[in-house]
């Protein structure tokens, strides 16, 4: 197995610029997949397989389904959820209670359990979804315990307390009902198959990518127009719904449920399944579930030592394979890994179709092939900050700051280190809210808008310290740009509707165009973190451009670049200017500032000390003083 995975993770495309040559051809992968499915399908029919083993297979299925459901929350979005069994409990008890109280058939209760569990997740997580890492972790543990204890305390006589609920019926599909171990085995694995198809479709869609963007860098995700809160909640609701389905199937198989089925220990096991398999990896979750169930079974003869071994195995795994047994691989798959239908085999063909670049400020996805809309290119102001003040504790970072950016021009904001320039950018893009003052963009007050809304309105930015999505490929990074203009949500992604497929195609086309424009097309299938520094800056630029903004805010775009790269960057910025992008830069390299700015604003100690055309600024004594210090002799 280890051999196989290491083969899988080998770098596939060594030669850049060509569509990747698969060392591990698609056909072989398909054969393996078919073999795996065939093995799963034939398992109960094998001669040595008895009912006990079939039941083990069923249990693996239950844990796999739960692992897949937690993988959405923990693996895809990176949220610490250590109380996931609560959602399974809600599903199981919904089934048990409604079966007895309303005599609804188990099959009808399956979707109802999913909906109730999902709704429950929405109710309990929406007030706490903003909590960070460990705080969210304890809250999920708390929710898990509350649910278990409530079930145990038998409110209104519904849950029957610690005695649990028995005599739950079997699923009955009218023509046939599911009763024997073999039937249950097929039942759970067919459900898993369906769920996996949906999850893969979701994973390889704008929704799945948005989840990964959040996991990789929440701030960068926000600044690229991802509604972080909504997507986190979606992950919880969906994960809970699938856990609810698992609860329903579990209840109908054993016909009996009790609160202790859903203890913290079980939640902790699910957590281990996801990490053993690999974060965000669907086959990993299956493998993790198999390990968790089968490992203790193998050590059954050691009776009381088996969980001891299991704990030790967990530690050893994390020391030697912290990424999991079967981590999700992204690089070297080519665009096929994006899961978008009917892409040309040759990725260069995608580029050759050369979509007309969208006009800045237009919503690209629906209109970018249409003749450009005329945007007023007058000397109007695109952005104004009015008397912005922001304090951090005792420090006044920005003080009463007025600045304006003229449409269609390059404005530079300069000033010594620590002057407050980046802080001002953070105010404009909604990361910080000012204590006083207003930000007006295209005549609209955007001071109170959330970052992701501001991006949608047409302001894109890059970061001083580069904030990419490091473990995603370059093309995936840039595909976050069009996200804020895309419409198709969860269900169209799950069912791959034609509209969703068209939209995905436009996203990848637009991203390809921008990636090529900054000269990174050859690196499209590389992970962002493997790029050299200068190229990472360009990638961030491409990602910002791909949001088709009216105003592009660049925080020290030339920092860390060598002279040649800086020259290329300047030329590129001129091209963008020609395309109609308005730009606002923070820059330290005065060659860049003096070379391409139309207007320079100088900031020192949080205040504006000068503004004007570059030449004037260059000789302004106040500016020289701010940089070099006062002449004193």
């Amino acid at each position, binding site marked *: 197995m280890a051999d196989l995975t290491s083969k899988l993770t080998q770098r596939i495309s060594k030669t850049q610029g060509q569509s990747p040559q698969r060392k591990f051809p698609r056909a072989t992968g398909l054969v393996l997949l078919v073999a795996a499915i065939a093995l799963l399908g034939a398992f109960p029919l094998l001669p040595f397989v008895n009912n006990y083993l079939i039941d083990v297979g069923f249990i693996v299925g239950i844990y796999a389904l739960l692992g897949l459901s937690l993988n959405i929350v923990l693996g895809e979005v990176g949220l610490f959820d250590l109380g996931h069994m609560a959602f399974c409990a809600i599903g199981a008890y919904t089934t048990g209670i409604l079966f007895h109280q309303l005599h609804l058939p188990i099959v009808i209760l399956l979707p109802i359990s999913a909906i109730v569990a999902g709704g429950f997740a929405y109710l309990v997580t929406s007030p706490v979804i903003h909590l960070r890492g460990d705080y969210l972790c304890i809250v999920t543990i708390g929710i898990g315990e509350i649910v278990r204890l409530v079930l145990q305390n038998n409110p209104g006589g519904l849950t029957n307390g610690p005695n649990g609920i028995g005599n739950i019926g079997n699923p009955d599909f009218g023509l046939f009902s599911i009763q024997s171990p073999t039937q249950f085995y097929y039942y759970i694995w067919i459900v898993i198959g369906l769920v996996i198809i949906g999850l893969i479709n979701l994973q390889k869609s704008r929704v799945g990518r948005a989840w990964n963007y959040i996991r990789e860098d929440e701030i960068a995700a926000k600044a690229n127009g991802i509604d972080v809160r909504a997507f986190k909640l979606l992950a919880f609701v969906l994960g809970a719904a699938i856990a609810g389905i698992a609860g329903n199937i579990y209840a109908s198989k054993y016909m009996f449920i009790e609160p202790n089925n859903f203890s913290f220990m079980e939640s902790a096991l699910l957590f281990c399944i996801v990490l053993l398999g690999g974060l965000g990896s669907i086959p990993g979750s299956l493998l993790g579930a198999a390990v968790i169930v089968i490992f203790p079974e193998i050590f059954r003869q050691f009776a009381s030592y088996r969980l001891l071994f299991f704990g030790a195995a967990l530690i050893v795994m994390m020391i030697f394979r912290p990424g999991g047994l079967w981590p999700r691989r992204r690089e070297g798959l080519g665009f096929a890994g994006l899961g978008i239908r009917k892409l040309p085999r040759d990725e260069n063909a995608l580029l050759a179709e050369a979509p007309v670049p969208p006009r800045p400020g237009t919503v690209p996805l629906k209109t970018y092939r249409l003749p450009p809309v005329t945007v007023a290119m007058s000397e109007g102001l695109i952005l104004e900050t009015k008397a912005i003040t922001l304090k951090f504790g005792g420090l006044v970072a920005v003080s009463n700051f007025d600045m304006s950016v003229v449409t269609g021009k390059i404005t530079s904001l300069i000033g010594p280190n620590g002057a407050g320039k980046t802080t001002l950018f953070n105010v404009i893009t909604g990361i910080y809210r000012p204590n006083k003052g207003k930000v007006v963009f295209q005549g609209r007050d955007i001071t109170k808008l959330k970052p992701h809304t501001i991006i949608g309105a047409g302001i894109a930015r890059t970061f001083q310290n580069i904030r990419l999505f490091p473990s995603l490929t370059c093309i995936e990074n840039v595909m976050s740009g069009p996200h804020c203009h895309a419409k198709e949500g969860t269900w169209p992604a799950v069912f791959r509707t034609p509209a969703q497929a068209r939209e995905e195609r436009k996203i990848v086309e637009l991203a390809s165009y921008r990636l090529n424009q900054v000269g990174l097309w050859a690196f499209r299938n590389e992970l962002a973190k493997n790029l050299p520094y200068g190229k990472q800056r360009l990638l961030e630029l491409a990602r910002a451009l791909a949001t088709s903004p009216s105003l592009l805010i660049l925080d020290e775009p030339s920092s860390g670049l060598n002279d040649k790269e800086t020259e290329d960057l300047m030329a590129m910025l001129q091209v963008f200017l020609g395309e109609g992008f308005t730009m606002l830069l923070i820059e330290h390299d005065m060659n860049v500032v003096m070379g391409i700015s139309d207007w320079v604003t100088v900031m020192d100690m949080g205040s504006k000390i000068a503004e004007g055309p570059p030449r004037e600024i260059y000789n302004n004594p106040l500016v020289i003083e701010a*940089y070099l210090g006062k002449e004193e002799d």
Partner: protein
Amino acid sequence: MAAVLQVETLFVSYGAVEALKGISLELDEGDIVAVLGSNGAGKTTLLKSISRLLVPRSGSIRLRGADINKFAPYQLIQQGIAHVPEGRKVFATLTVEENLRMGVFGVRTMAPGKEYKKTREWIFRLFPRLLERRKQLAGTLSGGEQQMLAIGRGLISKPSLMLLDEPSLGLAPVIAQEIFRVIRQIHQEEKVSILLVEQNARKALGLARYGYILETGKIAIQGEACDLRNDERVKAAYLGGAKVNISACGSMS
């Protein structure tokens, strides 16, 4: 004069980025040397390498002739090095007094005795404002006061060599003035050798005897401070304009 610090062809990189590309410099006992340059030139990287917070790719750093790698990072303060980091880095949840006590944590001879008390009095004389605020949490101080505390915390171990990283960063001119006055004073009275990293070139060159100008990880210009002060190329290095050629310097005017 003997060299207290010698840096030879130092290369440092962060992953793919090369931050220092062969820096060599020297600091004599009792001297002040300034390292100047714009943001990202590699100034802080240089100081962090000297303090062994970063591991250089190659090159050597010698402290009074001894290889600096002989000492664990936390032992350097015992060797008389005090590094005042960029951005003040005071311990926000500790009081002013506790911050000062941290300054001698690694110096066995200082522990809590008389000597410490005497030095602390001296620091309070240098920065009377710290005395007023000695019980306050450092996080509640203003930027200037935090910088004073950071320098005081460096001084309290009675170092023979101070590495000062942008002591005027983000400070109002009056306060920066004050800080520079104190640096001059400790240099003159205590004969501390000082390696001063600054953006504020005129101030730093007013204080230092010798200066190095860093540009993207290389030394672009070096020379006597009084010469550099009037050198057009220094202005150019900061404000752009004419490309600077690297040339041996020293007696140019």
